[in-house]
């Protein structure tokens, strides 16, 4: 069988399992089916979509942004405000949230992409802090630390199964956009911009355009996930906007395999399943995550995907730019 057919079979199988998951779970574990579907099924898909949207910027454009939760938060709060205030339908919240997040990302990008490397990250760190402060203090809209509660479930998808299929659709859309931006000409351009921005310019590529594309698209997708999450757990609090989720995103992306779709999806699923199985106390969990992130980024920056690729293809070198120096540094010669 050719590689393409094999891949199609694989995708088909995964899709079939995902589509049938509610039924599978109900038959396989009838007592726990709601719990499983909610925490594992929906939970993983939320993180898959959120992490893929993040990886566009971090793994493909090479821009480490610390402001990603802010866009998720824009989505969540927009949905919360619109649905509790005006009873707007889900789709309307999506449209407004995505537009708002996109606009915010355009502004942030325009302000900070002129800065190189770390300075961009610092700027986005500031954005995250500021978003958190606004969320806490703009109480007339966000109700501050009291959170916005009693957000209704989406009409037409109010029960758990319905919400599962909704997030499945969202994750599929995210995956599709991810594939569109990371293959072909755009994918090549992003790889060039993250690998050696100066060299990319030598061939006529405008790095700003590509960074913005990844950043703004990622922001809009994050907002989409945020809208879902608001309608799903029915509560939106200010800490969704700060740096809290950034740790989770970083762990998923690095543990799984930064810049690779399979790696990021794997990381998202692992990140959902393992804590559920382990049931850590909150503080200890964050501490462990921090340690894991530190160890991974220093000693195995290509994550599980890197290990897999090395095992499957017997590659000796790194998979991503994180495992080595970037522009100008020659590798060990391989005749």
């Amino acid at each position, binding site marked *: 069988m050719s590689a393409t057919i094999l891949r199609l079979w694989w995708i088909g199988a995964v899709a079939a399992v995902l589509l049938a998951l509610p039924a599978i779970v109900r038959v396989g574990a009838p007592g726990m089916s709601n719990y499983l579907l909610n925490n594992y099924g929906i939970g993983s898909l939320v993180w898959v979509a959120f992490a893929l949207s993040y990886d566009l910027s971090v793994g493909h454009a090479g821009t480490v942004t610390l402001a990603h939760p802010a866009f998720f938060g824009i989505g969540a709060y927009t949905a919360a405000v619109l649905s509790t205030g005006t009873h707007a339908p889900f789709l309307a919240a999506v449209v407004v949230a995505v537009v708002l997040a996109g606009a915010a990302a355009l502004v942030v990008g325009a302000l900070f992409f002129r800065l190189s490397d770390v300075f961009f990250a610092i700027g986005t760190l500031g954005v995250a802090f500021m978003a958190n402060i606004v969320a806490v203090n703009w109480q007339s809209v966000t109700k501050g630390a009291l959170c916005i509660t009693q957000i209704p479930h989406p009409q037409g998808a109010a029960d758990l199964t319905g919400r599962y299929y909704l997030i499945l659709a969202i994750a599929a859309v995210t995956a599709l956009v991810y594939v*569109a*931006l990371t*293959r*072909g*000409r*755009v994918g*090549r*351009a992003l*790889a*060039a911009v*993250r*690998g*050696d921005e*100066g*060299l*990319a*310019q*030598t*061939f*006529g*590529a*405008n*790095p700003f*355009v590509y960074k913005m*594309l990844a950043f703004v698209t990622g922001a809009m997708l994050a907002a989409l996930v945020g809208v879902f999450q608001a309608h799903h757990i029915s509560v939106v609090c200010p800490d969704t906007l700060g740096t809290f989720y950034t740790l989770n995103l970083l762990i998923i992306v690095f543990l799984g395999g930064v*810049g690779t779709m399979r790696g990021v999806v794997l990381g998202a699923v692992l990140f959902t399943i393992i804590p559920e199985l382990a049931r850590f106390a909150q503080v200890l969990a964050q501490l462990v995550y921090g340690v894991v992130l530190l160890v991974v980024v220093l000693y195995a920056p290509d994550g599980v995907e890197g290990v897999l690729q090395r095992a499957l293809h017997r590659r000796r*070198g*790194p998979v*991503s*730019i994180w495992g*080595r120096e*970037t*522009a*100008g540094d*020659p*590798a060990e*010669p*391989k*005749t």
Partner: protein
Amino acid sequence: MNAAPARRASSSADIALDIRGLSKRFLGVQAVGGVDLRVRSGELVGLIGPNGSGKTTLMNCITGIMRADRGEVLIKGLRTSGWPAYRIARLRVGRIFQVVRVIPTLTVEDNLLFAVQDLQGDPLWARVLHLPATRRLDAEARGRAEECLSLVGLQDRRRQPAWSLSYGQRKLLAFASTLMADPDLLLLDEPMAAVNPAVIEHLARLIRTFHAAGRTVVIIEHNMKVIFDLCPRLVVLDRGAKIADGPAEDVRRDRAVIDAYFGTQRDARS
């Protein structure tokens, strides 16, 4: 060379590169001071001079990596001072760097595909949607890439990631990428540095063929044999200033040039 599309006939009156009074100071040193240089379309010019004479800085100012403090750069008659590097590149200006640079995570073939794609002017939204027109452009580019790779001898490595290549192979890849981009004005910064004699011969042949098709080439080199073999015209910089500019035989014998390199008079005075 079949890899290139048909060249337009260039009249010798075309000035490919016109540098007027260019000065650049950085890290506390006057790297380039008041340099004038005119290169006609189709010329092959060698840019030489002792270490630290400002050659690379000059090249950086031409390609837009650095911004000159004073003076102007005109490329094909357009005033490009202050333009970002990518905009200058789109005028079909190519550059090969002193320490070789490739896109490490892309395959050899993809490096070449990237080299040409942002010079073809197809819109971004078409690329995002992976429209058939875009895919057709890529298919054509793949064909050309095969030819360019054959010219440098890397065709068997087309699927290998660029970081796995040796230094010499990366040099060849950089050359192939430049061929792919097919610039009208090519600037090479020490292309023969750190490679063995066989590769030097290969690269020299490539440069000659490239130039023979009507393109303008400016080469910075320290390898004197190569420079004297290749370049009919030499420009010499010393400590940021131009001290000689003319036919190679004359420049070789120029007193000021010999002094700059061997420092006889300067050393004797100090």
